[in-house]
């Protein structure tokens, strides 16, 4: 099987064409040892899953991603946060919300604001791992409908849960809402052991990285506000 460098790990992939194509920029050619993670589901496994409105290709891509992110939770102090991750000054800012709320619209304004100085690390499902006591976000081959990702590791400066509003505001998230928001942005429907592990990972991430709640308009002013507040925070 081909081996890929994803989220700081060696991952062997034998997947359907879309995943293999998206994974190309993660490919490594000179690796001889044992991979950390293997993703090679059979078509029989994939067929009955997911929303029946998805094409077989979509189902496969999403399921293969789920297997990868579950392996991160299970063995590598990592998780997936359903969010658009934008990078400025080598720091990653993650904006999470239910599909359709406007995460990519918001990070799109960051790109407009910063031009060349900003890029999207992963537009849909950045991997987030705690490595040597630092929280990093990573591009992966699973990055949404337009498949935008960069194969890099970037320290996370903040995680923000956004909702639409007629005014722009941002504040630290109430402590008792953090777990449920992080959990909802991750994979659910996992084994109980993985849920337990996920709890520990969420705990670690929240101890290092500030978590925010934001109401925003689809404007560049929202990006100005979010950047101003989030970039000034101290991150352990």
């Amino acid at each position, binding site marked *: 099987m081909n081996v890929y460098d994803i989220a700081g790990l060696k991952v062997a992939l034998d997947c359907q064409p879309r995943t293999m194509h998206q994974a190309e920029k993660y490919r490594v050619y000179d690796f001889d040892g044992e991979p950390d993670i293997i993703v090679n589901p059979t078509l029989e496994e994939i067929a009955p899953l997911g929303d029946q409105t998805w094409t077989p290709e979509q189902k496969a891509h999403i399921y293969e991603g789920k297997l990868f992110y579950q392996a991160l939770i299970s063995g590598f102090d990592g998780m997936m946060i359903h969010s658009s991750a934008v990078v400025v000054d080598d720091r990653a800012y993650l904006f999470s919300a239910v599909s359709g709320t406007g995460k990519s619209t918001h990070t799109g304004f960051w790109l407009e604001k910063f031009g060349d100085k900003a890029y999207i690390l992963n537009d849909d499902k950045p991997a987030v791992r705690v490595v040597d006591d630092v929280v990093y976000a990573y591009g992966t081959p699973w990055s949404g409908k337009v498949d935008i990702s960069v194969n890099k590791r970037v320290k996370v400066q903040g995680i923000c849960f956004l909702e639409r509003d007629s005014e722009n505001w941002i504040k630290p998230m109430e*402590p*008792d*809402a*953090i*777990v*449920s928001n*992080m*959990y*909802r942005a991750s994979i*659910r*429907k*996992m*084994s*109980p*052991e993985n*849920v*337990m592990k996920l*709890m*520990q990972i*969420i*705990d670690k*991430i*929240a*101890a290092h990285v500030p978590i925010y709640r934001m109401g925003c308009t689809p404007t560049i002013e929202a990006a100005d506000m979010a950047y101003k507040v989030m970039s000034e925070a101290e991150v352990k």
Partner: protein
Amino acid sequence: MKKSDKFILKEVAGSYVLVTFGEKELTFNGIITLNDTAKYLWENIDGEFDSDSLTEMLCKAYEVDEPTARKSADKFIDILKEVGAVE
């Protein structure tokens, strides 16, 4: 009813959640966040309990009248039943 022994209380990111370690893949949302009252009840329930015993527990522990305590107790029981945390 009694607490299900398949659920445990964990502190995560500054709040308390009930997480299950049952055998099947989870069909409900997987975790429930507990507020202070719910956490108190879960930790202090010993063996069989019902709406009356929980109401009494709350009245003793908090300065609250009986109807208010009963509302909290019943809501707590409903949530537990909904996710299967009682048997």
